């Protein structure tokens, strides 16, 4: 049984070098990707995903991701 005090061999003790540039979930983010529900559901989160987004807002979100690519470049 582990003690709970062991050194973390793999893990995220990397607060000092946190960098969104290395993250696929940031670099690849776009509006068109699906929103999926995983297996650990049923926790009382009633709100469903809004899958119909008006054109004007779609355009604005796409502009956000476009500007993000500029930041990450």
């Amino acid at each position, binding site marked *: 049984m582990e003690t709970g005090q062991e050194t973390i061999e793999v893990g995220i003790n990397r607060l000092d070098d*946190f960098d969104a540039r290395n993250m696929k979930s940031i670099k690849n983010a776009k509006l068109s990707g699906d929103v999926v529900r995983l297996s650990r559901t049923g926790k009382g989160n009633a709100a469903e995903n809004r899958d119909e987004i008006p054109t004007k807002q779609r355009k604005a979100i796409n502009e956000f991701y476009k500007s993000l690519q500029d930041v990450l470049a």
Partner: protein
Amino acid sequence: MPTPPHPLIHRFFNAYCKFFNSDLESAIIAKRNFAIINVFRVALATLLSGSIKNNNKLLNTINALENVIDIERELYSEINIYKCIGGYRNTIKEIFDEIDKCVVHFLDAYEFLYEVYNEDEEDRKFQDILVEFNNALSHIMTALQNQEDDTIKIPNISKAKTHLYRGSLDSYKEVIIKNKSIVMANTQKITRLGNKTFKEYYIDLRKYEASHIGRTEKQNEEIINRYRKLAWSLVN
């Protein structure tokens, strides 16, 4: 200590304040806009990145975020429970001194799950995990709106941390669920898991979680790290 959040983070929270008001109105009757919640996740990760220093480009991104939210406000503007007039600067620093580690844990866990589920280069977003992120932001927002009242501010900071912790844990658990057949079938001892099989490590971890969850932050963090270690070992 990690790099402090970019000064533009006060505009991030002002935008979130407006979204919070709209979301109160829309989440149930018009469904929740997870596309926007993902935009907030991406924007926050960018603002926390110490390496991103081009203020003009970041400013454009925050302007774009505000534009997205302004459109949401055009659609859902009947609730204005919170006044979105800023003035959070000092409290944001105080809150991030307290929760920055939890935020980075969360962003890192989401990234891990993302990579496992998007090997085909799709961009699937995880509603369940984004719910926890949104809940955390809403508690931070409540703390900011009540920054002079510790009886409201402090419990809400604590609740924000709980949601970030929950989102991190669920991300790793999802990876384990996706690989449960390996946990059950593989009888090889794994060096990095203390020379235990996946199942032995998993069983010990479940016992550890049951006997330590919710006790101290250090123990919560240890639970996250052990789940991460198991999840990481399953996919590497």
